[in-house]
């Protein structure tokens, strides 16, 4: 087989002549010889297509999906059941293939999906305005920071250590660009330290950020956190897991100005980390400062119901230099999955799912904390996720315990020591409705064996005589 891209010596000569140089060397003469590639690239020879396919298949088989193991891995993305209905609707070509599904007057169906999605999200969050989605959770958080900066021009973000580390990092990156100082507030007993939080908020606070349930799965007192910012100019931003909003007080009732989060849990598969969608809901006061697009309902000249993109004038493609965000797309297809999921689940279903997760999370925490060498990292009320502390030697010990469990077909969770400032011997365990009581019981056995084996190895190694 020949090289896939063929450039004949004649092609080369013709191209060089067209730009007025005689040879390749002459073309690159401006680049010092020392930094020029000397000789060919060290690449393997080409392969026949069948061999490439076989090789890729072999690589693909090394992936372990949530269907190959029993997974308690969460930390932002969750293994919920995705009903067949969602795939059926998401794969319809009207939704799957349009490049710009929002073009007004062309795609009424696409616009209606956005409108219905927004309606569902406002009901879920208790906030009056929703956009048609953004890329994912962390960029939604960062966009909320930009909204605050535009709204009040203040110079400081106050960030709870309970915020997802990816959100905190994304926000921090944005803050550098805008010259905004970030003040971190630590957790105390698993939740945002109320004294430190209140003390950090002042006249120059542009926005405050917390997560509920927080990164350690603990339920925060959202109302108290929001109240603490009441007498400051700060925009109150809460990151939420939408699945828990059937049982937690809606952000809109807690004084939260902007509720953001990752929408993957709503009808989107894990898909090895994406794509998914971020949601962004706010009070009416911030309607004109929201990133992305909003679909609105209207009537045409004959009085028939129709849908349009509204507040378009603020969008990047019209006013680049004054755009309220750099987010020029929505995740329309993934958001479609979200609204279909919420419709499938229904008003009562989201409450029941929340209650089920609450019960299973507490059962799992009690069961796993009873394992020898395992304790809870905090004793706050939790929903869907909780943090354990393993009596092993640091992050490396936790990683080995996780590997042992995975080898037994059970992924026990996310080592918290992987994140900067994260508890080194912490393990974050997540539940979905797919995890049964029997699987939790079995995980307790697998974890007990893994922790015991780790502690035995550690003991042996420390007892090695000098």
């Amino acid at each position, binding site marked *: 087989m020949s090289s896939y891209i063929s450039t004949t010596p004649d092609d080369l000569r013709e191209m060089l002549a067209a730009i007025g140089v005689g040879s390749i060397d002459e073309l690159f003469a401006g680049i010092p010889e020392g930094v020029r590639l000397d000789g060919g690239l060290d690449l393997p020879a080409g392969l026949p297509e069948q061999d490439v396919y076989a090789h890729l298949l072999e690589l693909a088989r090394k992936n372990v999906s949530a269907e190959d193991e029993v997974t308690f891995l969460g930390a932002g993305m969750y293994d919920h059941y995705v009903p067949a209905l969602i795939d059926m609707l998401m794969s319809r070509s009207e939704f799957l293939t349009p490049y710009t599904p929002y073009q007004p007057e062309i795609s009424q169906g696409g616009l209606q999906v956005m409108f219905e999605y927004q309606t569902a999200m406002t009901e879920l969050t208790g906030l009056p305005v929703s956009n048609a989605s953004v890329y994912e959770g962390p960029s939604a958080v960062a966009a909320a920071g930009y909204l605050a900066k535009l709204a009040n021009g203040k110079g400081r973000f106050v960030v709870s250590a309970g915020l997802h580390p990816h959100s905190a990092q994304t926000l921090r990156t944005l803050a550098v660009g805008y010259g905004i100082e970030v003040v971190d507030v630590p957790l105390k007993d698993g939740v945002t330290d109320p004294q430190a939080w209140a003390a950090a908020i002042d006249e120059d606070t542009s926005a405050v950020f917390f997560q509920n349930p927080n990164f350690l799965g603990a339920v925060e007192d959202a109302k108290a956190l929001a109240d603490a910012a009441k007498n400051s100019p700060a925009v109150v931003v809460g990151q939420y897991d939408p699945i828990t909003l059937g049982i937690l007080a809606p952000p809109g009732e807690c004084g939260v100005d902007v509720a953001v989060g990752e929408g993957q849990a709503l009808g989107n598969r894990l898909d090895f980390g994406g794509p998914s969608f971020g949601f962004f809901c706010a009070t009416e006061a911030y309607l004109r400062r929201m990133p992305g697009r909003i679909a609105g309902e209207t009537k045409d000249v004959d009085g028939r119901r129709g849908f349009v993109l509204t507040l378009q*004038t*603020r969008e990047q493609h019209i006013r680049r230099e*004054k755009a309220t965000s750099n987010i020029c797309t929505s995740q329309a297809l993934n958001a479609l999955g979200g609204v279909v999921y919420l419709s499938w689940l229904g008003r009562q279903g989201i409450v029941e799912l929340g209650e089920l997760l609450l019960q299973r999370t507490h059962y799992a925490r009690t069961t796993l904390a009873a394992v020898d060498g395992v304790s809870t990292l905090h004793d706050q009320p939790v929903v869907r996720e909780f943090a354990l502390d393993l009596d092993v030697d640091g992050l490396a010990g936790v990683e080995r315990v996780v590997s042992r469990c995975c080898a037994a077909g059970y992924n026990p969770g996310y080592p918290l020591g992987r994140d900067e400032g994260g508890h080194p011997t912490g393990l974050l365990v997540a539940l979905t409705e797919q995890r049964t009581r029997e699987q939790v019981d079995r995980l307790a056995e697998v974890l007990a064996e893994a922790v015991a084996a780790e502690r035995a190895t550690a003991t042996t190694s420390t007892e090695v005589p000098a």
Partner: protein
Amino acid sequence: MADASYPEGLLYHPEHDWAQIDGDVATFGITWFAQDALGEVVFFEAPAVGSTVTAGEPYTEVESVKAVSDVIAPLSGEVVEVNEALGDTPEAVNEDPYGAGWMVKVRLSDPAEKDALLDRDAYVATLS
């Protein structure tokens, strides 16, 4: 929407703004032509009282169904009052651009700048 009009006695900036000077304070707004070009005004972003505006520079934005546009200050000074009513009724800019649709009152820092502005006839001439 009001009929086309360009009252005598106002000073005009070529970027379609008007100013009415009363002592050391001037009231600013946009002309009939500007509101007509914008279409239905849906939002007026009030600048902060106490902020400074510079002649020829944007001091705020108006948003219509079609576009968001800068509003240019015809004269320099300090904002002493903003038309808060436009928050609820931005359409006043369309209905009464020289009356209820006024935008800000500014204490002038350099009253001599008014010499650079146009009178009614000179402004109307720029529109044809």
